[in-house]
Protein backbone atom coordinates (compact mmCIF):
# COMPACT_ATOMS: atom_id res chain seq x y z
CA UNK A 1 0.00 0.00 0.00
CA UNK A 2 1.37 3.32 -0.98
CA UNK A 3 -1.59 5.36 0.16
CA UNK A 4 -0.86 7.83 2.93
CA UNK A 5 -2.91 7.85 6.06
CA UNK A 6 -4.36 11.33 6.10
CA UNK A 7 -4.36 11.45 9.92
CA UNK A 8 -0.60 11.07 10.13
CA UNK A 9 1.90 13.61 9.01
CA UNK A 10 4.34 10.87 8.10
CA UNK A 11 3.78 7.43 6.71
CA UNK A 12 5.33 4.40 8.34
CA UNK A 13 8.25 4.44 5.94
CA UNK A 14 8.95 8.09 6.72
CA UNK A 15 9.15 7.34 10.41
CA UNK A 16 11.72 4.66 9.77
CA UNK A 17 13.81 6.98 7.66
CA UNK A 18 13.70 9.79 10.20
CA UNK A 19 14.58 7.50 13.07
CA UNK A 20 17.54 6.07 11.22
CA UNK A 21 18.69 9.49 10.14
CA UNK A 22 18.57 10.86 13.68
CA UNK A 23 20.43 7.94 15.19
CA UNK A 24 23.09 7.97 12.53
CA UNK A 25 23.51 11.73 12.83
CA UNK A 26 23.97 11.40 16.57
CA UNK A 27 26.51 8.66 16.05
CA UNK A 28 28.34 10.76 13.49
CA UNK A 29 28.26 14.04 15.40
CA UNK A 30 29.59 12.66 18.59
CA UNK A 31 32.46 11.08 16.73
CA UNK A 32 33.42 14.39 15.07
CA UNK A 33 32.25 13.30 11.69
CA UNK A 34 33.70 16.06 9.60
CA UNK A 35 37.41 15.35 9.81
CA UNK A 36 39.22 12.59 8.00
CA UNK A 37 40.97 11.82 11.24
CA UNK A 38 37.65 11.44 12.95
CA UNK A 39 36.48 9.17 10.21
CA UNK A 40 39.44 6.91 10.74
CA UNK A 41 38.90 7.09 14.49
CA UNK A 42 35.25 6.21 14.12
CA UNK A 43 36.08 3.27 11.93
CA UNK A 44 38.77 2.07 14.27
CA UNK A 45 36.47 2.25 17.26
CA UNK A 46 33.65 0.61 15.37
CA UNK A 47 36.04 -2.22 14.53
CA UNK A 48 37.12 -2.44 18.16
CA UNK A 49 33.59 -2.44 19.44
CA UNK A 50 31.83 -4.76 17.07
CA UNK A 51 34.16 -6.61 14.74
CA UNK A 52 37.35 -7.44 16.62
CA UNK A 53 37.12 -10.88 18.27
CA UNK A 54 33.62 -11.15 16.84
CA UNK A 55 32.26 -8.85 19.51
CA UNK A 56 29.04 -8.37 17.54
CA UNK A 57 28.24 -11.89 18.68
CA UNK A 58 27.88 -10.52 22.20
CA UNK A 59 25.06 -8.33 20.92
CA UNK A 60 23.56 -11.20 18.95
CA UNK A 61 23.57 -13.46 21.99
CA UNK A 62 22.25 -10.65 24.14
CA UNK A 63 19.41 -10.06 21.72
CA UNK A 64 18.67 -13.78 21.70
CA UNK A 65 18.45 -13.73 25.48
CA UNK A 66 16.21 -10.65 25.44
CA UNK A 67 13.81 -12.20 22.96
CA UNK A 68 13.87 -15.53 24.79
CA UNK A 69 12.96 -13.90 28.10
CA UNK A 70 10.35 -11.61 26.57
CA UNK A 71 8.63 -14.45 24.69
CA UNK A 72 8.33 -16.83 27.61
CA UNK A 73 7.46 -14.05 30.04
CA UNK A 74 4.63 -13.01 27.71
CA UNK A 75 3.39 -16.61 27.62
CA UNK A 76 3.35 -16.78 31.41
CA UNK A 77 1.71 -13.37 31.50
CA UNK A 78 -0.99 -14.54 29.09
CA UNK A 79 -1.88 -17.64 31.10
CA UNK A 80 -1.80 -15.84 34.44
CA UNK A 81 -3.57 -12.81 33.00
CA UNK A 82 -6.48 -14.83 31.61
CA UNK A 83 -6.91 -16.77 34.85
CA UNK A 84 -6.76 -13.65 37.04
CA UNK A 85 -9.11 -11.65 34.84
CA UNK A 86 -11.65 -14.48 34.64
CA UNK A 87 -11.59 -14.80 38.44
CA UNK A 88 -12.25 -11.09 38.87
CA UNK A 89 -14.92 -10.92 36.19
CA UNK A 90 -16.65 -14.04 37.49
CA UNK A 91 -16.67 -12.57 40.98
CA UNK A 92 -18.24 -9.39 39.70
CA UNK A 93 -20.71 -11.51 37.72
CA UNK A 94 -22.02 -13.10 40.90
CA UNK A 95 -19.96 -16.31 41.10
CA UNK A 96 -19.11 -16.83 44.76
CA UNK A 97 -15.29 -16.96 44.96
CA UNK A 98 -14.31 -14.31 47.54
CA UNK A 99 -10.95 -15.83 48.50
CA UNK A 100 -9.75 -16.31 44.93
CA UNK A 101 -10.94 -12.83 44.07
CA UNK A 102 -9.09 -11.31 47.02
CA UNK A 103 -5.90 -13.09 45.97
CA UNK A 104 -6.33 -11.90 42.39
CA UNK A 105 -6.90 -8.32 43.51
CA UNK A 106 -3.84 -8.37 45.78
CA UNK A 107 -1.76 -9.84 42.98
CA UNK A 108 -2.74 -7.14 40.51
CA UNK A 109 -2.36 -4.34 43.05
CA UNK A 110 1.04 -5.50 44.29
CA UNK A 111 2.63 -6.24 40.93
CA UNK A 112 1.32 -3.11 39.27
CA UNK A 113 2.15 -0.99 42.26
CA UNK A 114 5.86 -1.75 42.48
CA UNK A 115 8.66 -1.26 39.96
CA UNK A 116 9.45 -4.32 37.89
CA UNK A 117 13.13 -3.97 38.75
CA UNK A 118 12.40 -4.18 42.48
CA UNK A 119 10.32 -7.29 41.78
CA UNK A 120 13.14 -8.80 39.77
CA UNK A 121 15.62 -8.17 42.58
CA UNK A 122 13.23 -9.62 45.16
CA UNK A 123 12.69 -12.79 43.13
CA UNK A 124 16.41 -13.23 42.63
CA UNK A 125 17.87 -12.20 45.97
CA UNK A 126 15.05 -13.11 48.35
CA UNK A 127 12.67 -15.73 46.99
CA UNK A 128 15.24 -17.76 45.09
CA UNK A 129 18.21 -16.65 47.21
CA UNK A 130 19.09 -20.22 48.13
CA UNK A 131 18.51 -21.69 44.67
CA UNK A 132 21.88 -20.75 43.22
CA UNK A 133 21.87 -23.60 40.72
CA UNK A 134 18.80 -22.18 39.03
CA UNK A 135 19.46 -20.41 35.75
CA UNK A 136 18.83 -16.75 36.46
CA UNK A 137 17.10 -16.45 33.10
CA UNK A 138 14.28 -18.60 34.44
CA UNK A 139 13.98 -16.36 37.47
CA UNK A 140 13.80 -13.35 35.16
CA UNK A 141 11.16 -15.04 33.00
CA UNK A 142 9.10 -15.72 36.10
CA UNK A 143 9.52 -12.18 37.39
CA UNK A 144 8.70 -10.50 34.09
CA UNK A 145 5.93 -13.01 33.35
CA UNK A 146 4.12 -12.47 36.63
CA UNK A 147 4.59 -8.73 36.28
CA UNK A 148 3.10 -8.61 32.82
CA UNK A 149 0.39 -11.04 33.95
CA UNK A 150 -0.96 -8.29 36.18
CA UNK A 151 -1.13 -5.89 33.26
CA UNK A 152 -2.53 -8.49 30.88
CA UNK A 153 -5.21 -9.30 33.47
CA UNK A 154 -6.35 -5.69 33.28
CA UNK A 155 -6.27 -5.79 29.49
CA UNK A 156 -8.45 -8.90 29.47
CA UNK A 157 -10.81 -7.49 32.04
CA UNK A 158 -11.37 -4.54 29.76
CA UNK A 159 -11.77 -6.92 26.81
CA UNK A 160 -14.37 -9.02 28.59
CA UNK A 161 -16.14 -5.90 29.80
CA UNK A 162 -16.41 -4.64 26.24
CA UNK A 163 -18.56 -7.63 25.20
CA UNK A 164 -22.28 -6.87 25.23
CA UNK A 165 -23.84 -8.50 28.30
CA UNK A 166 -26.55 -9.81 26.00
CA UNK A 167 -23.98 -12.31 24.73
CA UNK A 168 -23.75 -13.86 28.18
CA UNK A 169 -27.52 -13.76 28.55
CA UNK A 170 -28.07 -15.45 25.21
CA UNK A 171 -25.64 -18.22 26.14
CA UNK A 172 -27.12 -18.66 29.61
CA UNK A 173 -30.66 -18.71 28.22
CA UNK A 174 -29.75 -21.84 26.28
CA UNK A 175 -28.84 -23.61 29.52
CA UNK A 176 -25.08 -23.20 29.24
CA UNK A 177 -23.32 -22.70 32.57
CA UNK A 178 -21.45 -19.52 33.42
CA UNK A 179 -18.10 -21.22 32.80
CA UNK A 180 -19.10 -22.75 29.47
CA UNK A 181 -20.58 -19.46 28.30
CA UNK A 182 -17.40 -17.67 29.31
CA UNK A 183 -15.21 -20.18 27.50
CA UNK A 184 -17.12 -20.57 24.24
CA UNK A 185 -18.91 -17.25 23.87
CA UNK A 186 -17.27 -14.43 25.84
CA UNK A 187 -13.55 -15.22 25.88
CA UNK A 188 -13.13 -15.90 22.13
CA UNK A 189 -14.62 -12.48 21.40
CA UNK A 190 -12.70 -10.76 24.18
CA UNK A 191 -9.38 -12.26 23.08
CA UNK A 192 -9.97 -11.15 19.54
CA UNK A 193 -10.60 -7.61 20.76
CA UNK A 194 -7.43 -7.40 22.82
CA UNK A 195 -4.92 -9.05 20.46
CA UNK A 196 -3.38 -5.70 19.44
CA UNK A 197 -3.03 -4.69 23.08
CA UNK A 198 -1.34 -8.00 23.86
CA UNK A 199 1.23 -7.31 21.14
CA UNK A 200 1.79 -3.92 22.70
CA UNK A 201 2.38 -5.64 26.02
CA UNK A 202 5.03 -7.78 24.31
CA UNK A 203 6.70 -4.63 23.00
CA UNK A 204 6.64 -3.02 26.45
CA UNK A 205 8.10 -6.15 27.97
CA UNK A 206 10.85 -6.27 25.37
CA UNK A 207 12.05 -2.94 26.66
CA UNK A 208 11.45 -3.73 30.31
CA UNK A 209 13.70 -6.77 30.23
CA UNK A 210 16.60 -4.35 29.81
CA UNK A 211 16.92 -4.36 33.61
CA UNK A 212 17.71 -8.09 33.60
CA UNK A 213 21.40 -7.22 33.73
CA UNK A 214 20.92 -6.33 37.39
CA UNK A 215 20.70 -10.00 38.24
CA UNK A 216 23.58 -10.89 35.98
CA UNK A 217 21.82 -11.86 32.78
CA UNK A 218 23.65 -10.94 29.58
CA UNK A 219 20.69 -9.53 27.75
CA UNK A 220 21.02 -7.03 24.92
CA UNK A 221 21.53 -4.03 27.21
CA UNK A 222 24.05 -5.84 29.37
CA UNK A 223 25.88 -7.03 26.25
CA UNK A 224 26.39 -3.39 25.29
CA UNK A 225 27.79 -2.69 28.71
CA UNK A 226 30.05 -5.71 28.47
CA UNK A 227 31.50 -4.35 25.25
CA UNK A 228 31.96 -0.99 26.96
CA UNK A 229 33.95 -2.69 29.68
CA UNK A 230 36.20 -4.37 27.13
CA UNK A 231 36.86 -1.38 24.90
CA UNK A 232 36.54 1.50 27.36
CA UNK A 233 34.30 3.07 24.74
CA UNK A 234 31.18 4.73 26.04
CA UNK A 235 29.03 5.77 23.13
CA UNK A 236 29.02 3.35 20.27
CA UNK A 237 27.98 0.16 22.11
CA UNK A 238 25.00 1.75 23.85
CA UNK A 239 23.90 3.66 20.78
CA UNK A 240 24.05 0.42 18.85
CA UNK A 241 21.96 -1.27 21.54
CA UNK A 242 19.42 1.55 21.37
CA UNK A 243 19.32 1.27 17.59
CA UNK A 244 18.61 -2.46 17.78
CA UNK A 245 15.76 -1.96 20.28
CA UNK A 246 14.35 0.83 18.16
CA UNK A 247 14.36 -1.17 14.94
CA UNK A 248 12.67 -4.15 16.58
CA UNK A 249 10.08 -2.04 18.36
CA UNK A 250 9.24 -0.08 15.23
CA UNK A 251 8.94 -3.26 13.23
CA UNK A 252 6.62 -4.85 15.79
CA UNK A 253 4.58 -1.66 16.09
CA UNK A 254 4.02 -1.65 12.36
CA UNK A 255 2.80 -5.26 12.64
CA UNK A 256 0.38 -4.22 15.38
CA UNK A 257 -0.98 -1.42 13.23
CA UNK A 258 -1.49 -3.80 10.36
CA UNK A 259 -3.17 -6.29 12.67
CA UNK A 260 -5.48 -3.62 14.06
CA UNK A 261 -6.47 -2.65 10.59
CA UNK A 262 -7.14 -6.25 9.66
CA UNK A 263 -9.17 -6.96 12.80
CA UNK A 264 -11.28 -3.85 12.49
CA UNK A 265 -11.98 -4.60 8.85
CA UNK A 266 -13.13 -8.16 9.45
CA UNK A 267 -14.91 -7.42 12.69
CA UNK A 268 -18.21 -9.17 12.79
CA UNK A 269 -21.14 -7.45 14.46
Amino acid at each position, binding site marked *: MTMRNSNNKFSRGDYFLWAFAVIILVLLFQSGFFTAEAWQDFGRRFYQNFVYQERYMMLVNGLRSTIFMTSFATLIGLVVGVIVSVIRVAHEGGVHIPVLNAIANCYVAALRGTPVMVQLLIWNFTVFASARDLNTQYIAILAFGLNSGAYIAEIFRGGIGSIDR*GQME*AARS*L*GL*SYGTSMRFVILPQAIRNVIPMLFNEFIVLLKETSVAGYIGIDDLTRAGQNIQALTMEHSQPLLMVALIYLVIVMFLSSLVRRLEKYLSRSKRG
Partner: protein
Amino acid sequence: MIIEVENLKKSFGELNVLNGITTGINKGERIAVIGPSGSGKSTFLRCINRMEELTSGIIKFNGEDITSQDCDINLIRRHIGMVFQHFYLFPHLTVQQNITLAPVQLKIMSQNEALDKAKYLLERVGLADKLNEWPDKLSGGQKQRVAIARAMAMNPEVLLFDEPTSALDPEMIGEVLDVMKELANSGMTMYLVTHEMGFAKEVADRILFINQGEIYEEGTPSEVFDNPKKPRTIEFLSKVLRR
Protein backbone atom coordinates in the same frame (compact mmCIF):
# COMPACT_ATOMS: atom_id res chain seq x y z
CA MET B 1 -49.69 -25.74 33.51
CA ILE B 2 -46.14 -25.58 32.23
CA ILE B 3 -45.32 -22.35 34.01
CA GLU B 4 -46.99 -20.99 37.11
CA VAL B 5 -46.10 -17.60 38.50
CA GLU B 6 -47.21 -16.76 42.03
CA ASN B 7 -47.06 -13.25 43.44
CA LEU B 8 -43.92 -12.35 41.52
CA LYS B 9 -42.26 -9.16 42.77
CA LYS B 10 -39.16 -7.54 41.44
CA SER B 11 -37.49 -4.33 42.44
CA PHE B 12 -34.30 -2.69 41.28
CA GLY B 13 -33.15 -0.91 44.42
CA GLU B 14 -35.91 1.49 45.39
CA LEU B 15 -37.78 1.02 42.13
CA ASN B 16 -40.57 -1.55 42.24
CA VAL B 17 -40.93 -2.92 38.74
CA LEU B 18 -43.22 -5.86 39.39
CA ASN B 19 -45.75 -5.61 42.20
CA GLY B 20 -47.05 -9.13 42.56
CA ILE B 21 -47.92 -10.97 39.39
CA THR B 22 -49.81 -14.23 39.49
CA THR B 23 -50.41 -15.99 36.20
CA GLY B 24 -49.46 -19.06 34.23
CA ILE B 25 -49.33 -20.68 30.82
CA ASN B 26 -50.73 -23.99 29.64
CA LYS B 27 -49.13 -26.30 27.15
CA GLY B 28 -49.68 -25.05 23.63
CA GLU B 29 -50.97 -21.72 24.84
CA ARG B 30 -49.80 -18.46 23.27
CA ILE B 31 -49.84 -15.46 25.52
CA ALA B 32 -49.05 -11.96 24.35
CA VAL B 33 -47.88 -9.49 26.95
CA ILE B 34 -48.60 -5.88 26.09
CA GLY B 35 -48.44 -2.61 27.94
CA PRO B 36 -46.78 0.78 28.04
CA SER B 37 -43.00 1.21 28.12
CA GLY B 38 -41.55 0.71 31.57
CA SER B 39 -44.59 -1.22 32.75
CA GLY B 40 -42.42 -4.24 33.58
CA LYS B 41 -43.43 -6.60 30.78
CA SER B 42 -39.88 -7.42 29.72
CA THR B 43 -38.81 -7.81 33.34
CA PHE B 44 -41.72 -10.21 33.86
CA LEU B 45 -40.54 -12.29 30.91
CA ARG B 46 -36.91 -12.24 32.06
CA CYS B 47 -37.90 -13.43 35.52
CA ILE B 48 -39.51 -16.55 34.08
CA ASN B 49 -36.14 -18.10 33.18
CA ARG B 50 -34.43 -16.16 35.97
CA MET B 51 -32.42 -14.03 33.61
CA GLU B 52 -33.48 -11.51 36.23
CA GLU B 53 -33.44 -12.68 39.86
CA LEU B 54 -36.83 -12.07 41.40
CA THR B 55 -37.20 -10.22 44.65
CA SER B 56 -39.96 -12.46 45.94
CA GLY B 57 -42.59 -14.88 44.71
CA ILE B 58 -42.54 -18.36 43.24
CA ILE B 59 -42.13 -19.57 39.69
CA LYS B 60 -42.88 -23.19 38.91
CA PHE B 61 -41.86 -25.04 35.79
CA ASN B 62 -43.81 -28.27 35.33
CA GLY B 63 -44.61 -28.11 39.02
CA GLU B 64 -41.02 -27.65 40.15
CA ASP B 65 -40.18 -24.50 42.09
CA ILE B 66 -37.34 -23.01 40.06
CA THR B 67 -36.71 -20.22 42.54
CA SER B 68 -35.60 -22.60 45.29
CA GLN B 69 -31.96 -23.06 46.26
CA ASP B 70 -31.91 -26.72 45.16
CA CYS B 71 -33.04 -25.99 41.63
CA ASP B 72 -30.34 -26.08 38.95
CA ILE B 73 -31.51 -23.23 36.75
CA ASN B 74 -29.24 -24.34 33.90
CA LEU B 75 -31.25 -27.57 33.58
CA ILE B 76 -34.53 -25.63 33.55
CA ARG B 77 -33.30 -23.13 30.96
CA ARG B 78 -32.70 -25.97 28.49
CA HIS B 79 -36.47 -26.26 28.26
CA ILE B 80 -37.23 -22.54 28.10
CA GLY B 81 -35.98 -20.89 24.94
CA MET B 82 -35.52 -17.15 24.75
CA VAL B 83 -35.45 -14.76 21.81
CA PHE B 84 -34.09 -11.27 22.44
CA GLN B 85 -34.88 -7.89 20.98
CA HIS B 86 -31.29 -7.49 19.80
CA PHE B 87 -30.85 -11.12 18.62
CA TYR B 88 -27.49 -11.61 20.36
CA LEU B 89 -26.17 -14.07 17.83
CA PHE B 90 -22.61 -15.07 18.67
CA PRO B 91 -20.63 -13.01 16.14
CA HIS B 92 -17.52 -15.21 16.25
CA LEU B 93 -19.47 -18.30 15.24
CA THR B 94 -21.16 -19.19 11.96
CA VAL B 95 -24.91 -19.61 11.75
CA GLN B 96 -24.51 -23.36 12.04
CA GLN B 97 -22.20 -23.06 15.07
CA ASN B 98 -24.59 -20.61 16.71
CA ILE B 99 -27.32 -23.22 16.50
CA THR B 100 -25.29 -26.29 17.43
CA LEU B 101 -23.18 -24.83 20.25
CA ALA B 102 -25.57 -25.45 23.12
CA PRO B 103 -26.94 -28.90 22.17
CA VAL B 104 -23.42 -30.21 21.53
CA GLN B 105 -21.77 -28.62 24.58
CA LEU B 106 -24.57 -29.86 26.82
CA LYS B 107 -24.17 -33.33 25.26
CA ILE B 108 -27.82 -33.45 24.27
CA MET B 109 -26.89 -34.23 20.66
CA SER B 110 -23.83 -35.41 18.80
CA GLN B 111 -22.23 -32.99 16.38
CA ASN B 112 -23.93 -34.73 13.47
CA GLU B 113 -27.34 -34.82 15.08
CA ALA B 114 -27.03 -31.14 15.94
CA LEU B 115 -26.00 -30.34 12.40
CA ASP B 116 -29.02 -32.17 11.00
CA LYS B 117 -31.20 -30.32 13.46
CA ALA B 118 -29.64 -27.00 12.43
CA LYS B 119 -30.30 -27.74 8.77
CA TYR B 120 -33.89 -28.70 9.52
CA LEU B 121 -34.50 -25.57 11.58
CA LEU B 122 -32.87 -23.27 9.04
CA GLU B 123 -35.09 -24.80 6.41
CA ARG B 124 -38.05 -24.08 8.63
CA VAL B 125 -37.14 -20.40 9.13
CA GLY B 126 -36.36 -20.07 5.41
CA LEU B 127 -32.58 -19.71 5.68
CA ALA B 128 -31.34 -23.08 4.48
CA ASP B 129 -28.69 -21.38 2.33
CA LYS B 130 -27.17 -19.50 5.29
CA LEU B 131 -25.81 -22.56 7.11
CA ASN B 132 -22.17 -21.48 6.93
CA GLU B 133 -22.72 -17.74 6.85
CA TRP B 134 -21.36 -15.32 9.45
CA PRO B 135 -23.92 -13.34 11.46
CA ASP B 136 -22.60 -9.98 10.26
CA LYS B 137 -23.52 -10.97 6.71
CA LEU B 138 -27.19 -11.31 7.64
CA SER B 139 -29.92 -8.70 7.73
CA GLY B 140 -31.71 -7.98 11.01
CA GLY B 141 -34.66 -10.15 10.07
CA GLN B 142 -32.38 -13.00 9.09
CA LYS B 143 -30.45 -12.68 12.35
CA GLN B 144 -33.64 -12.89 14.35
CA ARG B 145 -34.77 -15.95 12.42
CA VAL B 146 -31.43 -17.61 13.16
CA ALA B 147 -31.86 -16.65 16.82
CA ILE B 148 -35.24 -18.38 16.79
CA ALA B 149 -33.66 -21.46 15.23
CA ARG B 150 -30.94 -21.36 17.89
CA ALA B 151 -33.52 -21.34 20.63
CA MET B 152 -35.49 -24.13 18.93
CA ALA B 153 -32.41 -26.33 18.67
CA MET B 154 -32.76 -27.18 22.35
CA ASN B 155 -36.29 -28.51 21.75
CA PRO B 156 -37.72 -26.15 24.36
CA GLU B 157 -41.16 -26.63 25.85
CA VAL B 158 -41.74 -22.89 26.02
CA LEU B 159 -40.38 -19.99 24.02
CA LEU B 160 -40.03 -16.52 25.50
CA PHE B 161 -40.01 -13.70 22.96
CA ASP B 162 -38.78 -10.38 24.31
CA GLU B 163 -39.90 -7.75 21.78
CA PRO B 164 -38.47 -9.79 18.89
CA THR B 165 -39.34 -7.29 16.19
CA SER B 166 -38.71 -3.99 17.98
CA ALA B 167 -35.14 -3.61 16.68
CA LEU B 168 -36.00 -4.49 13.10
CA ASP B 169 -36.45 -2.34 10.04
CA PRO B 170 -40.17 -2.25 9.19
CA GLU B 171 -39.71 -4.31 6.05
CA MET B 172 -37.99 -7.09 8.02
CA ILE B 173 -40.75 -7.48 10.60
CA GLY B 174 -43.02 -9.57 8.39
CA GLU B 175 -40.55 -12.38 7.79
CA VAL B 176 -39.94 -12.80 11.53
CA LEU B 177 -43.64 -12.70 12.35
CA ASP B 178 -44.25 -15.36 9.68
CA VAL B 179 -41.77 -17.67 11.37
CA MET B 180 -43.38 -17.04 14.75
CA LYS B 181 -46.81 -17.67 13.31
CA GLU B 182 -45.62 -20.97 11.90
CA LEU B 183 -44.26 -21.90 15.34
CA ALA B 184 -47.54 -20.93 16.95
CA ASN B 185 -49.50 -23.04 14.47
CA SER B 186 -47.26 -26.01 15.19
CA GLY B 187 -48.42 -25.93 18.81
CA MET B 188 -45.46 -24.22 20.43
CA THR B 189 -46.10 -22.74 23.85
CA MET B 190 -45.17 -19.07 23.65
CA TYR B 191 -44.89 -16.00 25.82
CA LEU B 192 -44.60 -12.94 23.63
CA VAL B 193 -43.81 -9.43 24.78
CA THR B 194 -44.62 -7.22 21.83
CA HIS B 195 -45.77 -3.94 20.46
CA GLU B 196 -47.16 -5.65 17.35
CA MET B 197 -50.82 -5.44 18.33
CA GLY B 198 -52.09 -6.87 15.08
CA PHE B 199 -49.90 -9.91 15.44
CA ALA B 200 -50.83 -10.35 19.11
CA LYS B 201 -54.49 -10.20 18.19
CA GLU B 202 -54.09 -12.72 15.40
CA VAL B 203 -51.87 -15.29 17.09
CA ALA B 204 -52.40 -15.08 20.85
CA ASP B 205 -54.94 -17.08 22.83
CA ARG B 206 -54.75 -14.66 25.71
CA ILE B 207 -53.58 -11.11 26.20
CA LEU B 208 -51.97 -9.80 29.39
CA PHE B 209 -52.05 -6.04 29.71
CA ILE B 210 -49.38 -5.09 32.21
CA ASN B 211 -49.41 -1.64 33.75
CA GLN B 212 -47.21 -0.38 36.59
CA GLY B 213 -45.95 -3.85 37.38
CA GLU B 214 -49.34 -5.51 37.66
CA ILE B 215 -51.59 -7.46 35.37
CA TYR B 216 -54.06 -4.69 34.85
CA GLU B 217 -56.39 -6.48 32.47
CA GLU B 218 -56.37 -9.85 30.74
CA GLY B 219 -58.53 -11.85 28.45
CA THR B 220 -58.91 -13.18 24.94
CA PRO B 221 -57.74 -10.88 22.13
CA SER B 222 -61.28 -9.90 21.27
CA GLU B 223 -62.08 -9.14 24.91
CA VAL B 224 -59.03 -6.95 25.40
CA PHE B 225 -58.72 -5.35 22.00
CA ASP B 226 -62.36 -4.95 21.06
CA ASN B 227 -63.93 -4.40 24.47
CA PRO B 228 -61.31 -3.18 26.90
CA LYS B 229 -62.93 -2.52 30.25
CA LYS B 230 -60.47 -0.50 32.25
CA PRO B 231 -59.52 3.14 31.60
CA ARG B 232 -55.74 2.66 31.25
CA THR B 233 -56.23 -0.18 28.76
CA ILE B 234 -58.65 1.88 26.73
CA GLU B 235 -56.27 4.83 26.71
CA PHE B 236 -53.27 2.68 25.76
CA LEU B 237 -55.07 0.84 22.98
CA SER B 238 -56.59 3.99 21.58
CA LYS B 239 -53.06 5.38 21.22
CA VAL B 240 -51.35 2.35 19.73
CA LEU B 241 -54.19 1.15 17.50
CA ARG B 242 -54.84 4.55 15.95
CA ARG B 243 -51.66 4.28 13.94
